[in-house]
């Protein structure tokens, strides 16, 4: 499982994509109740479903064609490509 270092509004987070996404889900749940009842798996699905609305079209097409180890890796990458997220992937270390 790949390990990420993620930039989050001036701070960094480390861990695999599932762990980082769960932290983001909890953060989102504080303001958006629909996320409170979601599992991290459902949260990843929601990010993947919404990405075409927030990731520049050609970039999204290129990302969509890439293989990812898990849906969590895909969802975290999509989130990091949403300009409004403020999230950026700094490093990825393969397992």
């Amino acid at each position: 499982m790949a390990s990420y270092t993620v930039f989050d509004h001036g701070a960094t987070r480390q861990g695999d994509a599932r762990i980082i996404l769960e932290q983001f889900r909890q953060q989102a749940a504080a303001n958006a109740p629909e996320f409170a009842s979601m599992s991290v798996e459902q949260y990843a699905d929601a990010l993947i479903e919404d990405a075409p609305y927030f990731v520049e079209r050609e970039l999204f097409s290129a990302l969509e064609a890439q293989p990812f180890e898990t849906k969590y890796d895909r969802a975290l990458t999509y989130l990091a490509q949403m300009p409004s997220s403020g999230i950026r992937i700094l490093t990825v270390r393969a397992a």
Partner: protein
Amino acid sequence: MSDAAPATHDPSSLPGTYRNRVFVGGSFQPVSREVLGVIEQAIRDTGFEPVLADRFALLQPDHDIHDVTLGLLHGCRLAVFDLTGLSGALMELERCRDYGLFRVLLLYHHPFGRTWPDDPGSWSTSAMVKSLVREDAGRFHVRPFVRPAGAATETRRFLRAVRSSSYGKLHSL
């Protein structure tokens, strides 16, 4: 996902009425246009008439976009903007007071739903825009949305509030 909207309307003959037209502004780049489409449908669902600039045929687009779009804005008393990113919509926003728009909803995407001004950094726009909104808080209403459907929910809520206001009752909206 939809492609560019067909430009079927004549800018000299607007749909709806002055009272029920809702101008929709924001970036018309393909990805942002998707969110504008969500807002457009929500306006229609609520019984108002959406006005999106790319629905209107222009004789010379390179020359006409600015003037015709501001003409469209002037023909509306309500507006909804997606101000997630910087775009030409800022020129329209500046004109909302001049043109006497009654209420304007400003939406921005934030994946964690952080709300400006409680979280000052949550809305990535210029201090110029933020000060305009603060100074005219009765006209401009700012709301974040987390998912595309949230933009529709906020739009419907905004228009229903307008409808149930004394202004809405006065004009039978």
